[in-house]
């Protein structure tokens, strides 16, 4: 008994794997619909005139962003936490009834919040703040989910056998703290049912409506401190946690440099929070904050590239694995897209570039090369690595995975190239003057010119969605159709043809 390897309990991880895939499909499908609505406005009436209110661009847009951020990505973060946490802390969830109960509460309460968000956003109940659209009752539920997540992290750490915290754990802790701080401060709001009229009436109007505690410029400042860093602590920090665990595991290589991981971690923590100001260049926030936002965005290249280079160099001497394994391909291209995206962002944060790029599709393109190429690829790769260990079966099909990889890579490339051209075209047309000093183009000229790029973007998004459905099918077949793996798996994940 003494020498038997520890049996980890993946009950909660499995639950979150399921929502990762489900909400990924929902979020990406809505994204593709939105893309085609911009190219072909008739798509706004996809379910007929009667349901136009619920299918048009403006109602669906927050559903897309929130489904992908808080549905797909966050589920992926939770799924990997309930897998990685146990393994690097050398302790099983099954050892603590309390942690198991917390994990289940975490999942079910999360699901309740997801349903509430979907219903409320379809109904148009929103605070308007990007990625913080939820009204106060949902905010309270979100805080509860997050507190449970924190208890789960620190609970598992509390009963750990491995005394030293592995790099991935640093990043999970930072994810928890960062989002907690940002979410609380950005959602400070007063429910309007607290207002009392001169004649003594109270509890007037919608019970769920609230008003922000900050006004105008201050509200914008807090929102983009949040908005930018929700990206940091949702799309970067926990994804780095994933790659620090899954790439060395899958490739059988040790992390290239511990010192580089230290530098990147503490550097990222310190620098990232300053950069939110780059969303507000040339706005009415004080100039010095805008300049700080710009400068720190450029400095941010260092810790970002530190992590990415650390990952790529982890593959040193083992590059044949990239050719041999589609799973390694996802992770290596993911790190490459991370480098690419974290170089593009600082370029856009330079004031003179931002003057052209801000408000255009180039920003949309930037978000998507990061999210599709880095976040999406890493989450799918993590789930692919987890599947054989969680379900004790080899991955259904290697060739399907390879096909998916190329289809999605083509999708991402079509997406960001079309959005670059669209964004820079529009930015330049907005500012063009003719020889007499008048504006050269009316606004609508700068919209109609984008039609071909919007169509190409739609196709790019569709390819990515098709690839994601292949991923979902591959995981489904892995769960149901493959022979059982009896022995404890070491590095490279077993795959069928």
């Amino acid at each position, binding site marked *: 008994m003494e020498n038997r390897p520890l049996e980890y309990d993946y009950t909660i991880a499995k639950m979150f794997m399921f929502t990762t895939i489900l909400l990924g499909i929902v979020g990406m499908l809505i994204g593709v619909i939105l893309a085609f609505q*911009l190219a072909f406005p008739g798509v706004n009436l996809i379910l007929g005139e009667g349901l136009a209110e619920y299918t048009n661009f403006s109602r669906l847009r927050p559903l897309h962003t929130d489904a992908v951020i808080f549905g797909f990505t966050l589920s992926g973060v939770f799924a990997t936490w309930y897998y990685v946490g146990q393994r690097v802390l050398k302790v099983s969830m099954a050892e603590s009834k309390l942690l198991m109960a917390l994990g289940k509460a975490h999942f079910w309460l999360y699901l309740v919040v997801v349903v509430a968000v979907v219903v409320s956003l379809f109904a148009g109940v929103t605070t308007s703040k990007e990625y913080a659209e939820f009204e106060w009752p949902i905010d309270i539920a979100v805080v509860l989910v997050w507190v449970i997540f924190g208890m789960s992290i620190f609970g598992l750490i509390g009963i750990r056998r491995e005394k030293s915290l592995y790099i991935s754990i640093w990043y999970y802790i930072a994810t928890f703290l960062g989002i907690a701080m940002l979410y609380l401060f950005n959602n400070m709001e007063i429910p309007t049912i607290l207002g*009392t009229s001169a004649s003594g009436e109270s509890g007037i109007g919608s019970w769920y*409506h609230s008003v922000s505690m900050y006004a105008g410029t201050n509200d*914008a400042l807090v929102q983009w401190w949040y908005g930018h860093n929700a990206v940091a602590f949702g799309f970067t920090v926990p994804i780095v946690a994933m790659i620090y665990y899954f790439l060395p595991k899958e490739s059988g290589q040790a992390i290239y440099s511990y010192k580089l991981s230290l530098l990147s971690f503490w550097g990222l*923590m310190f620098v990232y929070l*300053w950069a939110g100001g780059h969303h507000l260049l040339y706005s009415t926030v004080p100039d010095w904050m805008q300049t700080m936002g710009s400068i720190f965005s450029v400095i941010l290249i260092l810790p970002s590239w530190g992590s990415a280079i650390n990952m790529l160099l982890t593959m040193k001497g083992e590059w044949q694995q990239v050719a041999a394994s589609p799973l390694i391909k996802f992770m290596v291209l993911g790190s490459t897209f991370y480098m690419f995206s974290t170089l593009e962002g600082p370029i856009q944060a330079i004031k003179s570039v931002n003057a052209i790029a*801000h408000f255009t599709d180039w920003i949309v393109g930037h978000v998507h090369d990061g999210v599709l190429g880095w976040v999406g690829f890493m989450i799918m790769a993590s789930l692919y690595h987890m599947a054989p260990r969680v379900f004790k079966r080899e991955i259904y099909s290697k060739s399907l995975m390879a096909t998916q990889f190329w289809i999605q890579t083509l999708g991402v490339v079509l997406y960001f190239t079309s959005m670059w051209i669209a964004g820079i075209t529009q930015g330049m047309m907005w500012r063009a003057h003719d020889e007499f000093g008048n504006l050269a183009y009316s606004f609508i000229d700068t919209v109609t010119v984008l039609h071909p790029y919007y169509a190409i973007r739609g196709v790019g998004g569709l390819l990515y969605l098709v690839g994601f459905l292949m991923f979902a099918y591959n995981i489904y077949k892995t769960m149901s159709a493959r022979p059982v793996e009896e022995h404890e798996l070491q590095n490279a994940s077993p795959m069928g043809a």
Partner: protein
Amino acid sequence: MFHWLEKHPFFFAVGVFLVISFAGLVEILPSFAQASRPVIGTAPYSTLELAGRHVYIKNSCNACHSQLVRPFKSETDRYGHYSLSGEYAYDRPFLWGSKRTGPDLMRVGNYRTTDWHENHMKDPASVVPGSIMPAYRWMFTKNADIDTAFAEQLTVAQYFSVPYNQSVPMKDGSTAVVKMGSSVVEANAIALEEAKVIATDMKDQDVKDAVDRGEIPEIVALIAYLNSLK
């Protein structure tokens, strides 16, 4: 030090928290001292305008339209004077947006009319050929939520001292008073008076009939809000 931190999760978490909260303390707190004082000519929203603002938010108009004119010649030529911080003093939440799929609306009240908005919201491409904006026909039949707008006025007056029923200075040297009802009934009556003025300039017979019956369709509130953006 780092090795020690990695063995002591509590101190590790404290360390991370200190490092990530530093930027917020330095960058955000100072701004709260002064940034949101209203400029002369900026008045709080009336009940109907606020209800219209809620319609704007409900339909995420801010997903495609900004309300922020940057200090460039190309922008001031197109949209009017660049934005000043104090102009947003009563904006809770701010609605600057992050994407201009459609044009900026910061000062749309200066150059578009009730009639233009009515036609445009019904069928955008008939007013602006080539427009990719969807139609918003349900706004002509659904009623605006005046009660909630009133509740918001009460809340901001109570908690943030927004000057309702007080005189505020206007650009021409005069003063204006934005009225807030003393009861739900009075608030609805004030909003209806304002709605009647908008409905007079509209063509849609169903909207006119609704206002005559004492109802306020969403489109009327939205147009009141858009007209107030100057």
